[in-house]
């Protein structure tokens, strides 16, 4: 009867709790479900059976999800993609800031020169430099928007880190094996691998270094 099953199930769960504590590793979920199914005595209703099948299916799903997450190489997401994206965004802010200051330097110089012109021309020049100063507003807004994106990326990074930690040390070992297997595949570099875009300022070769390489 179903009530017998419920009682047996409770007793068995209590025994498992004493043996393993309140926390069960994801890897052990399948074993526990199988153990429950084989040890329960009494009649099983169709509903009970369906429930157990659902739980076992869930365990299989979790195993599959873990394998897929391992294949995504979450450490790469943290250490490479997000770190790289953050650096690129910082570089955008730095580059646009430098460019804005250059523009402001030039506009201020024009303002000075305006004082040496006839008044009507000086006024026209001043109106033009005003438009330049106004347009340079973009830099502040761009910087603030990019800061928001960087914050969002850091949030994703923390979530990925939390996911990896939640799966426990076995998962991290599995992850390390996946990375070792993928990095040792010895694939040849393709044209696509050469498309890296602009380099970070501290890593980029300047023209003199390029000339040296070219003439080597």
């Amino acid at each position: 009867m179903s009530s017998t099953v419920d009682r047996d199930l409770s007793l068995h769960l209590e025994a498992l709790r004493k043996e393993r504590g309140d926390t069960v590793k994801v890897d052990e979920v399948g074993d526990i479900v199988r153990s429950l199914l084989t040890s329960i005595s009494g009649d099983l209703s169709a509903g009970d059976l369906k429930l157990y099948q659902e739980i076992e299916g869930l365990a299989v799903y979790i195993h599959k999800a873990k394998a897929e997450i391992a294949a995504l190489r979450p450490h790469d997401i943290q250490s490479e993609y997000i770190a790289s994206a953050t650096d690129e965004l910082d570089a955008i802010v730095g580059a646009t800031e430098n460019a804005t200051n250059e523009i402001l330097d030039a506009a201020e110089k024009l303002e000075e020169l305006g004082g040496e012109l006839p008044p009507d021309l000086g006024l026209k020049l001043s109106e033009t430099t005003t438009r330049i100063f106004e347009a340079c507003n973009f830099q502040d807004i761009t910087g603030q928007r990019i800061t928001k994106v960087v914050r969002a990326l850091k949030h994703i990074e923390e979530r990925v880190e939390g996911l990896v930690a939640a799966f426990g040390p076995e998962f991290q070992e599995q992850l390390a094996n996946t990375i070792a297997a993928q990095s040792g595949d010895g694939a040849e570099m393709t044209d696509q691998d050469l498309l890296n875009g602009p380099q970070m300022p501290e890593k980029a070769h300047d023209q003199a270094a390029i000339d040296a390489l070219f003439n080597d």
Partner: protein
Amino acid sequence: MAVDKNMHILIVDDYKTMLRIIRNLLRQLGFVNIDEATDGAMALSMMRGGGNYGLVISDWNMEPMTGLQLLREVRSDAKLKATPFIMVTAESKSENVIAAKEAGVSNYIVKPFNAETLKTKMVSVLGDF
């Protein structure tokens, strides 16, 4: 009464390029005595240090002291509370504007802004010039 273009104006922003832009726009409007601070705490220290400012133009989002905190400090200081205070910020939600109004802001400019808007808001606070 005519606005004294020799009055001292304090501009506050953690972004130095923005300080430079506002300084240039103010200079084009004829104001020459312009001091700069890079956060609210620095601005407050300058004001309490005897800056005698006829106008404060401040950003909101700064550390360690925000523009809103600066405004509240100014409004609760017996010697400074009458200082005209314009907030210039990218914070454009209605709750921001309401909070600034409740704190006693004189006017509110949303970034990005142009010279005409700056002048209009200054006129509304100081009178025509």
